């Protein structure tokens, strides 16, 4: 225990040794220096006039945003339906694609740890590190704007998430059940069907609903890059600076997200 002597010679308890204290201080100093350096690099091209002007701009935009333009809501139902479809069909497509990837990536079900597993893991990492909006940007350039590009973007983005959580669930299964099915002389597929699938089904359903919830959130903004849904209306309203319409859209998005969160929480609660 680090103890230092006070002036009168009475030992005083301290939290750390003086060497540990020094290292800690040097660490903090380095962090502060790095922060200041990054701040200067980041703001070297900032036009400060706009920043000082920001409170006025904020007040201006707020005054234009309220009251929301409620009449606009009648134009939003169809894009909202598109948004729901993008999220749901995208999740379905992702499920179809990610189940095989998960089985190839799990250490206990993959056919070869040396060749197939790294490929599956790479698919998972690339899908996870690229945001749905970037996938949308690419797909709109490749297959044209619209709901279809949104569905594919959501699916490509979700593969990594679903596969990663699913393969972790597969790796954590109870092997005795698999052995028991094996001992009855079952084939490989039968082992999969009776030994592994029942064990991961609840986790799988939970993961899927969770991802669907996230996808609802993401699909509301996919329209910003042209991939369909309510984001298209948002982009159009921002372009013409119709802030009253923007507020209405924000409120509709907020409502949708809250409902989807509620649904997903209910379903996951009943599963666990």
């Amino acid at each position, binding site marked *: 225990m680090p103890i230092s002597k006070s002036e009168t010679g009475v030992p005083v308890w301290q939290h750390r040794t003086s060497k540990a204290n020094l290292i800690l201080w040097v660490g903090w100093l380095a962090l502060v220096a*790095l922060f200041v350096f990054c701040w200067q690099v980041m703001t070297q091209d900032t036009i400060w006039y706009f920043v000082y002007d920001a409170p006025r701009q904020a007040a201006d935009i707020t005054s234009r945003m309220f009251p929301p333009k409620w009449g606009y809501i009648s134009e939003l139902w169809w894009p909202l339906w598109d948004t729901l*479809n993008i999220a749901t069909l995208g999740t379905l497509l992702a499920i179809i694609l990610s189940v095989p990837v998960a089985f190839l990536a799990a250490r206990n079900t993959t056919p070869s740890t040396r060749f197939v597993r790294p490929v599956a893991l790479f698919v998972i990492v690339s899908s996870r590190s690229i945001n749905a*909006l970037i996938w949308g940007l690419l797909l709109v*350039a*490749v*297959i044209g704007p619209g709901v279809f590009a949104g569905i594919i973007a959501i699916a490509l983005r979700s593969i990594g998430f679903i596969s990663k959580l699913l393969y972790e669930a597969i790796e954590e299964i109870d092997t005795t059940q698999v052995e028991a099915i094996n001992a009855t002389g079952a084939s490989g597929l039968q082992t999969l069907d009776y030994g592994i699938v029942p064990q991961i089904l609840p986790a799988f359903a939970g993961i899927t609903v969770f991802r669907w919830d996230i996808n609802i959130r993401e699909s509301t903004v996919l329209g910003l890059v042209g991939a369909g849904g309510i984001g298209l209306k948002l982009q159009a309203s921002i372009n013409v600076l119709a802030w009253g319409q923007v507020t209405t859209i*924000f409120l509709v*998005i907020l409502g949708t997200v809250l409902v989807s969160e509620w649904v997903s929480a209910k379903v996951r609660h009943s599963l666990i």
Partner: protein
Amino acid sequence: MTSSSVASPVAGRPWRKRPFIVNARLRWSLYLGSLLYLVLAISSVSVNWSRVWEGLDRGWRFVEGFLVPDFASRWGDIVIGMQESLTMTLTSTVVGILISVPIGIGAARNIAPAPVYAVCRSIIALSRSFQEIIVAILFVAMFGFGPLAGFLTLSFATIGFLSKLLAEDIEDIDEAQAEAVRATGGGWWQIVNYAIQPQVMPRLIGLSLYRLDINFRESAVIGIVGAGGIGATLNTAIDRYEYDTAGAILIIIILIVMVSEYSSGYVRKWVQ
């Protein structure tokens, strides 16, 4: 499925697996409902197949660009974009943590008085209800284009994430230690400093590193709406149909995400 789900080998009636949803009526209505939804949803998605067919060629060029990326011809733009993204990530994470620690303490039911609790919880709810990209649109409108708007967006998003998890962590602490400090006559600050902080510190460090990771990924996205960073460079590259440059940027993003995910996982294991 009634009693046949119990494993009783009655002659002529082989055992069957128990279905995932046991209630038959609920199961069939779910199946029927999903089928109806699928038919409606798929029929409402209009796909311009000839456009998709034409796009396949372009998609192939993108795959080629990804396999043979071109780092050289836009290297200057890539460096500026990366520099903005990385500095934005670091500064916004640091500022976000600094703001979210007091809010997180205020949002923990066991140590904060009721009015403070309500205020802090509503700040968290506000920050979590809107996605980064929507916040970025508003900040760009107020503060002008550039990484400063991105910095503000990411700081704002960090507050919701970190405060919520920190508050939940403080609510889950071992009460005995707080009581021991209270028994020595320690005040509120001393309880926070000696009983709570040591218990939540490892997790706070872990969460901060995780958020650093998320902020980098998000910094690649918010550039699409003008908030600076590598996303802006990527957007330009795709708009110019320079798929090989876009491929290079995506590869850099994937690599940085992989490195940061691996190293933050390592540090988190070491801290906990």
